[in-house]
């Protein structure tokens, strides 16, 4: 069957390696054509050792501030840089509500998540957004790849995180709550938090605080599509 790019609808011509042609290694079905893929910047090694921000070595200014505030043991990984194309992607996916675009990065996210053990907890959208979109963007991105536990409850806030400037974001008070029905998770060695976009780290660190307040003492890691 022919595959079509979820972003531009062009037919995808698979570029096979010799091992794939010989059937020795598996053919990965990409959801994006080469031309669309080129528009995104996949984060390599040259990035902040803590949060994955590009070209900030060994540690970016955001993380430096968080470390001063005592967050010494968290680590984040992001797949791509939040560039103009990623902005367009999220506009189509979240603002316009094109649920089919959740598949664009699935192959790459799957590869990235291989190194992370269960359980995975996601940062949920607000009730209001959920009603508007009729889907949760983070669940859309990760839900087909891993088991997501809805262990965070989002408490109502006045302004959406996306509409705030940097200062306002950093000053946002705690808006997540750990759902105690999931207390069993707290005995795990590691918990991985997933979100769609990492901007200042504020949201992820609220999640971190939540887990610590609930009594979790293990390793906390987090992943997102964009940074």
């Amino acid at each position: 069957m022919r595959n079509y790019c979820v972003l531009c609808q062009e037919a995808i011509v698979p570029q096979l390696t010799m091992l794939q042609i010989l059937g020795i290694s598996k053919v990965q079905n990409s959801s994006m054509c080469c031309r669309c893929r080129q528009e995104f910047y996949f984060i390599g090694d040259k990035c902040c050792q803590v949060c994955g921000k590009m070209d900030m070595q060994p540690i970016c200014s955001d993380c430096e501030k968080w470390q001063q505030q005592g967050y010494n043991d968290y680590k984040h990984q992001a797949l791509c840089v939040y560039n103009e194309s990623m902005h367009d992607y999220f506009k189509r996916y979240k603002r316009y509500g094109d649920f089919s675009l959740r598949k664009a990065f699935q192959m790459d996210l799957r590869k990235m998540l291989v190194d992370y053990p269960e359980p995975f907890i996601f940062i949920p959208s607000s009730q209001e957004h959920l009603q508007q979109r009729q889907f949760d963007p983070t669940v859309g991105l990760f839900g087909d790849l891993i088991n997501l536990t809805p262990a965070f409850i989002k408490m109502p806030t006045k302004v959406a995180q996306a509409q705030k400037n940097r200062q306002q974001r950093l000053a946002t008070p705690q808006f997540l709550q750990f759902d105690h029905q999931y207390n069993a998770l707290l005995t795990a060695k590691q918990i991985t938090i997933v979100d769609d976009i990492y901007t200042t780290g504020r949201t992820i660190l609220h999640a971190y605080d939540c887990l610590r307040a609930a009594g979790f003492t293990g390793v906390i890691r987090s992943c997102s599509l964009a940074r």
Partner: protein
Amino acid sequence: MQNKELSGRLLVLRQPLVNRSVPALTEIDENTLLCQRCQMSIAKKIYYLGSNTFYCPHCLFLGRLTNKDYLWAVPEINAFPKQSAPLVWQGKLTTQQQIVAQKLCLAEQNNQDYLVWAVTGSGKTEMLFLVLEQAIKKQKRIALVAPRVDVCTELYPRLQQAFAQVSIQLLHGQGAHDYHYTQLLVCTVHQLLKFRQAFDVLILDECDSYPYANNVLLHRAVEQAVKSTHTIIYLSATPSSEYQQLIHKNKLAYSILNRRFHGKDLPVPHFYLCSKKNKHQLPVKLVSRLQNLVTTKQRFLLFVDRILQAEQISQFLQKKLPQLEQTFVHSKDPKRQQKVAAFRKGQRQALVTTTVLERGVTFKNIDVIVWQADSQRFDSQSLIQIAGRAGRSSEFSDNKVSFYATTYNKAIDQAIKTIKKLNHA
């Protein structure tokens, strides 16, 4: 009594309205739905939101439609005041413009479609004034549409001035506009999907250009926005085969406007063959040409085939010709508008650009150079448009246009031949 504000609109409803609304998405077969707003089909197994909720991915930019929504096409009532002399423009048409303007009036009279093949810089907006006046007097509703926002924003103030007493508004996807009912509407083709059988006269500028060309959705948007009796006037500097075929079959009447308003020839492109080279650099031949331009202080646009190229060639020139003041522009460049505005004001000697500046923009006294003119990204229409950036004002009608490439292909050949033909027609 119907509210005139809604007249001609296609409204989205969350609840059905008896005898008026239709479901937004209708079933074609088990696996496929048809969107009643954009007439595109929807694969149910891809475009769903959950149990039994499906959406149209094609017209999402106007707000997502699902199979739970309804559409109501409000009838157009043409509630416009009677006007005896709406045109306040004082200018004069050239004889050639005058002939075309009269042909357009006749087409409107007979509710026929018409194509004007007008070379870049021939003053096609002025040529529309007579037919617009005629239609306004008859209380007709008129849309002036272009595929791209830039063209709309350039057109709007000129019409506003020429028809100072006529209600008019500009509508496009960038920036918030409060819609209100007007006799003249200037908008992007996309916006037409918000109307149904609303317009008596529709003028489609740059009908051969992206994103309208070959776009089924936008073609349907035009078809659905006009009344069943209507006149569509197509404007193009480079009509595509779509229109040439209609002309050939006598299905579309047309006129050619082959002279610029200043009456001088279009600059004919010169072709320069180059040997193959590293694609992040420019060949020696071209570099020494640019060197020359630096010496003579002739300003120019350097067209390249892709976004990355524009940035790389600009960097390359920075090193190779540091005395040349230049920068790059492309569609993904957030500073594009500023850079173009600065260049128009005379800042910098050159811009390295993609096809984003291929049409719609006018600079005075500019030479035009295309690097890798044989790239697939440049078809003959695109090359003709690019060449049309040069020689726009009568004092500098002999600006140079040059194509540099490693092969001489069909697109280049066609572009040069067409320009020569127009000059001698």
